[in-house]
């Protein structure tokens, strides 16, 4: 029998770190008894990518271990683990080989935790399984892979068909498109664009006479480098605008490999050549689209089901499916703009169907006859900015054209009834009511355009700090159903009101500066500039709002007419504000990182994801957050300078 004193020592060590800190010490005895301690010098490799899985996972008790992937010979750091971090969990969930290499970064004492004991804990302790399903996905090595495997462990939480399909496919090869369309470097941009549109393809590879890839032209290149530029450059050779060199890889890459590559390189097209180098003939092409759709998790299927739904229950079902799709995408580290576009499309489709259903019901009830008056359904706040990944509160409104004289009241009644029905359906689909009642079912926010113009006029002409704060969500309105021209008219009115009342932007900007970013994290505390510490981090108020507020102010100042997301606003601002190009790109990327972090946190905790416990963040997330905080600081300084806010501080 092992020494009780020693076993208790090991239990005490395990109890210091999640997920074991949640457990009754008695439960840990069995695991502690089977722990093995190993000591490693700097530089030692614990396991390598491609090694078969060991019988245990590892916990760092002292020192540090770095985990990296190697893709075509290049090292990509994935995580850095130190005291209390667990790695090598792939051994618990998977049956394939390690996908990362673990190397000792500082001399380390490791606990080896046998997988059968951890599996036993997973079965008997829900809190442990939650940790492995949620926190582990973020905090431990195989970020791209573990989450999906963890889905399999806790079916009560995540059990959806789509995930299982995905699991089976994880190590499947991505089938490249082998009928690659290529062109020589000297044809004109116009000719290349014609080939692309004729063949209905999003990219074309520019090749040498030996068929070696020289560069690539994508839709984005055409938009950015041709369409948006003044003057005609369509006659120039494609070589003048192609992205070069092309990222080349060898064939036989798995979905997991490709996702990893996509995340790390931030590229969306990869060219397969015979030997993987740019100096060999083109053999195929893999695009982001091929990677995403190869899992069988096709958002198009959900969209189709929504468009064909005949009742609200079906809408609800599809919205629930979207949530599990979201989990897979987040787990796969798919680009946030891609995910938010899909989720927004789906949300918009649900709203569209909800309005369709409601209009039909109103018609059948036959009490009102105002269907001829044009109206527009507006999404507000984060949904207006196309940033709602998780289902948060509904914020919406109805804007309708001026009703004929004498029908004002009847029209109001009618649209209010519409608002009530639609918000009811949305609530049924899991979008909870807005606590502040900013919804189309509220008589105040269901109004003809004249009243809406009056609202904005009041906010802009006589701004009060408090009113400005409460009105920000309205400035993010976006038409989702009906006559978009009503929304456009309202936006133009706002621009002209702002032009006549410059003082408003000062208030607006000042509101955006209410929250200076924190400095960073130390251990499990958020460190504030004011030297306060907090053990919970409000990602929305402390990081996302300062950025989205700043982007909104600048977009209104510069009369950006599109209904943009915060990231899109920053990217546009980068092109509009001299000297803001880099900061704009940085802020856009930072904002997308925050969206992802919030979604991951929300999914793990079944919450809105707003409050994050610092101890659940891994090293890389902390590091990135710290960088985002400094970006926020730069954005705020820019805003401050632009509006000279120090003068109007109270």
């Amino acid at each position, binding site marked *: 029998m092992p020494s*009780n*004193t*020693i*076993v208790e020592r090991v239990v005490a060590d395990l109890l210091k770190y999640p997920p074991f800190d949640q457990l009754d010490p008695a439960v840990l005895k069995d695991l502690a008894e089977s722990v093995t*301690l190993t*000591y490693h010098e700097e530089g030692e490799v614990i396991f390598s990518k491609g090694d078969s899985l060991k019988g245990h996972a590892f916990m760092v008790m*002292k020192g540090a271990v770095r985990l990296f992937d190697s893709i075509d010979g290049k090292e990509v750091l994935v995580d850095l683990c130190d005291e209390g971090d667990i790695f090598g969990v792939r051994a618990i969930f998977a049956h394939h080989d390690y996908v990362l290499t673990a190397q000792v970064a500082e001399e380390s004492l490791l606990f080896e935790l046998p997988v059968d004991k951890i599996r036993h804990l997973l079965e008997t302790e829900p809190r442990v399984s939650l940790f492995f399903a949620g926190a582990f996905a973020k905090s431990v090595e195989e970020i791209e892979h573990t989450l999906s495997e963890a889905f399999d462990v806790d079916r009560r939480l995540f059990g959806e068909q789509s995930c299982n399909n995905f699991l089976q496919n994880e190590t499947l090869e991505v089938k490249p498109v082998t009928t690659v369309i290529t062109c020589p470097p000297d044809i004109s941009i116009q000719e290349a664009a014609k080939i692309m549109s004729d063949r209905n393809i999003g990219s074309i590879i520019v090749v040498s006479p030996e068929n070696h890839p020289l560069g690539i032209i994508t839709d984005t290149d055409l938009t950015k480098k041709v369409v948006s530029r003044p003057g005609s450059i369509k006659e120039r050779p494609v070589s003048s605008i192609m992205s070069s060199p092309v990222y080349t890889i060898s064939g036989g890459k798995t979905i997991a490999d490709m996702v990893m590559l996509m995340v790390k390189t931030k590229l969306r097209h990869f060219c397969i050549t015979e030997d993987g180098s740019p100096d060999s003939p083109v053999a195929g092409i893999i695009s982001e689209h091929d990677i995403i759709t190869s899992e069988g998790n096709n958002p198009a299927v959900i969209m189709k089901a929504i468009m064909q739904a005949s009742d609200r229950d079906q809408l609800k079902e599809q919205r629930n499916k979207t949530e599990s799709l979201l989990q897979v995408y987040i787990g796969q580290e798919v680009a946030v703009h891609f995910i938010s576009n899909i989720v927004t499309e789906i949300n918009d489709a649900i709203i569209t169907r909800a309005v369709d259903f409601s209009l039909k019901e109103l018609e059948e009830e036959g009490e009102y006859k105002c269907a001829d008056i044009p109206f527009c359904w507006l999404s507000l706040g984060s949904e207006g900015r196309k940033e709602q990944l998780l289902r948060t509160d509904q914020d919406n409104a109805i804007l309708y054209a001026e009703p004929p004289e004498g029908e004002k009241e009847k029209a109001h009644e009618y649209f209010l009834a519409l608002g009530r029905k639609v918000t009811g359906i949305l609530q049924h689909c899991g979008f909870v009511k807005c606590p502040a009642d900013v919804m189309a079912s509220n008589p105040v926010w269901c109004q003809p355009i004249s009243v809406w113009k009056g609202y904005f006029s009041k906010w802009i002409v006589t701004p009060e700090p408090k009113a400005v704060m409460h009105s920000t969500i309205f400035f993010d309105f976006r038409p989702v159903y009906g006559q978009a021209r009503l929304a456009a008219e309202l936006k133009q009115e706002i621009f002209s009101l702002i032009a006549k009342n410059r003082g408003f932007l000062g208030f607006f900007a000042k509101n955006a500066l209410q929250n200076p970013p924190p400095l960073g994290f130390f251990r499990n505390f958020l460190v504030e500039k004011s030297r306060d510490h907090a053990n919970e981090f409000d990602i929305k108020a402390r990081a996302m709002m300062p950025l989205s507020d700043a982007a909104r102010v600048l977009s209104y100042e510069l009369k950006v007419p599109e209904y943009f997301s915060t990231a899109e606003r920053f990217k546009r601002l980068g092109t509009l504000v001299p000297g803001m190009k880099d900061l704009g790109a940085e802020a856009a990327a930072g904002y997308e990182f925050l969206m992802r972090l919030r979604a991951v946190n929300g999914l793990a905790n079944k919450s809105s994801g707003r409050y994050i416990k610092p101890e659940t963040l891994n090293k890389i997330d902390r590091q990135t957050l710290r960088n985002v905080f400094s970006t926020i600081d730069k954005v705020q300084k820019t805003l401050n300078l632009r509006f000279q806010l120090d003068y109007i501080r109270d």
Partner: protein
Amino acid sequence: MISLLAKKIAARRCRRGELPDSVCRYVKGFSGPSDLAKPLGEVRFVVFDTETTGFDIAKDSVISVGAIALSDFRINVQDSFEVLIRRDSVGESEAVTTHGLLRKDLDEGREEQEAVEAFLEYIGNSVLVAQHADFDVAMINRILQKKYGFELFNQVVDTASLAKRLEKGPYYNLAHKSGEYRLDVLLERYNIRLYDRHTAAGDSFLTAQLFQMLLMKAGYAGIRSLRDLLLK
């Protein structure tokens, strides 16, 4: 040579049935030649510690023994050992409180003979490791001598001497600065987290972690076989 003779005598007593079976199994474990050429990764080390009523080898006695094994450079929690020894005169000694052992615990302990037989069974012919090993080995030997007329046959490594040897070379005179090689000081120097000290098992676990690091460093210093380690 003395040890060879002692082994023979013990083996003869076993054949005559004068010693308990478990003790005879221990003795039998040393019947073959010791394999000094073995690489360190193939050796089973048992790191142990004794708590005693005092520091006089002649008068004081062992209250508890704790140990943990290290094989293939790994410390295996499963392969650990702990025994408390019951004695009647325990209340008289001050060491009782400093070791955190209450009379009650010791009352629950095992008879000295039973305890030491369990220990022999656990260690077998492994290489013993202890901090200032001479003292602990002497304490165990006194019991063995009294009960069975022989002493430990195992090879012994002293962690203090090993640390000194790795840090200063084999000919440094430890006597001058023995303070630098106390367990607390070594643990701190090698950055091993101290928890509550002063139980035999707890100290053996800490000593094992120290020994694990020393073994790794020994490997870099060209010490690869048991012979290299024991300087034989």
